[in-house]
């Protein structure tokens, strides 16, 4: 279980997150929505340990993620709208490199296997630099899954993707959900992934406006527009 207590992040005088409290159960798929600048990316960066909070704590199964960051990093995968890949390496080389950092057994086989699942095996030896945005995003997902994490954070994984790219990633997310992975994803593509979610968290100006398990698209859209227009 992920437990977030009084999480705050300030950049100078700007408060990006203002004391968030929430919990996510094992195997839950939670969508984070919010207008631009609401603090979605900051929240996911903090949860994935690449950004330190100004105040507050995050626990995964009662383990403080900052005091035990090594242990936690081996349990989480993070996909951002930036792929976090080396452009002058091929997809296979990237994955073998990252698999090595995670001490994955037989990194080459594991990398090939995951590239096949993501339908990238035919172009596994091409440089990432030459990939389309959608292909880079699939390799980024492969990078995040190479060590078989039980928690996956995704920060706008559909941004800039075409229909095919969105569909491939959505199918993979469905499989991961079925495998019982805990998934926290921020997105603006509500219609593409509302069906996947167990719960929706709406962030506005660094605060939780509401968190609901009612994933009815019409209800959510109506409430979202109401709250966002009030706050603007």
């Amino acid at each position, binding site marked *: 279980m992920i437990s977030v207590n009084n999480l705050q992040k300030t950049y100078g005088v700007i408060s990006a997150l203002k004391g968030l409290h929430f919990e996510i159960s094992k195997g839950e798929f939670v969508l984070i929505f919010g207008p631009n600048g609401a603090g979605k990316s900051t929240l996911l960066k903090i949860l994935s340990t690449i950004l330190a909070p100004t105040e507050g704590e995050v626990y995964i199964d009662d383990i403080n993620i900052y005091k035990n960051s090594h242990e936690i990093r081996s349990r989480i995968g993070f996909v951002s709208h*930036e*792929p976090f890949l080396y452009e002058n390496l091929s997809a296979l080389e990237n994955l073998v490199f990252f698999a090595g950092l995670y001490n994955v057994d037989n990194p080459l086989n594991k990398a090939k296997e995951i590239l096949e699942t993501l339908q990238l095996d035919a172009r596994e030896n091409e440089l990432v630099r030459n990939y389309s945005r959608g292909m*880079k995003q699939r390799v980024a997902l492969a990078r995040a899954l190479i060590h078989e994490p039980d928690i996956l954070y995704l920060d706008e994984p559909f941004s800039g993707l075409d229909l095919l790219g969105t569909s491939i990633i959505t199918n993979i997310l469905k499989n991961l959900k079925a495998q019982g992975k805990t998934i926290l994803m921020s997105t603006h593509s509500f219609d593409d992934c509302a069906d996947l979610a167990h719960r929706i968290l709406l962030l506005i100006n660094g605060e939780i406006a509401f968190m609901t398990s009612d994933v009815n698209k019409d209800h959510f859209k109506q409430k979202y527009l109401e709250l966002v227009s009030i706050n603007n």
Partner: protein
Amino acid sequence: MKTIISIVRKDFISEFRSRDMFISMFTFSLIIIFVFNLVLDLTSNIKNIVSPAVLWITFLFSGSIGLSRSYSLEKESEAIKGLLLAPVDRSLIYMGKFFSNLIFLLIIEIITIPIFIILFNYDFSIKIIEIMLVIFLGTIGFSSVGTLFSAISLNTRLREVLLPILYFPIIIPVLLNAVRITRSLLSGESLSSNSSSLQVLIAFDIIFLSAGILLYEYVIEES
């Protein structure tokens, strides 16, 4: 050790594909040496005084280009964040980047030395082994400080400008002592007559390598 080797290997494959860093560093080294050689009419009296400084300034400037480029590769597609997400000690990432930079700088320096010898009319019987030892120690200093300060400047908008501003003042003790020892060796003196300068170089290397290992964790994190 496996992590360090992986990072060095990754940097080499990446650089071998683009060759951006090697080409820019080597071209820059050549230009500096040629320009100094043309503008300074060096008689034998002052040659041994001026030429070691030219050599080390060449190494310093071309090295700063290499250090800056080395982190540009990490910043491209935010690959550094993929590295930071992995369950590896930050000190190992520092050591990996340090060794990559050290090897890149040494390669350029080894290529530059014969050009320097020819252009400045030295013969190849100079104390090349001793000079290479000084270059090795000086380059450890360049790489240890440069790797740390490149990481500091990584998350800033003006990183290309900030790196030399931070890097050059700190590296002055290495530069002064390396020039002093090289000058002495080119004048035919022995390495043992420069033991105090040699000790400063070694001490600097140990201090900044240790500082890099200890501080990298704090400078590389996004704040």
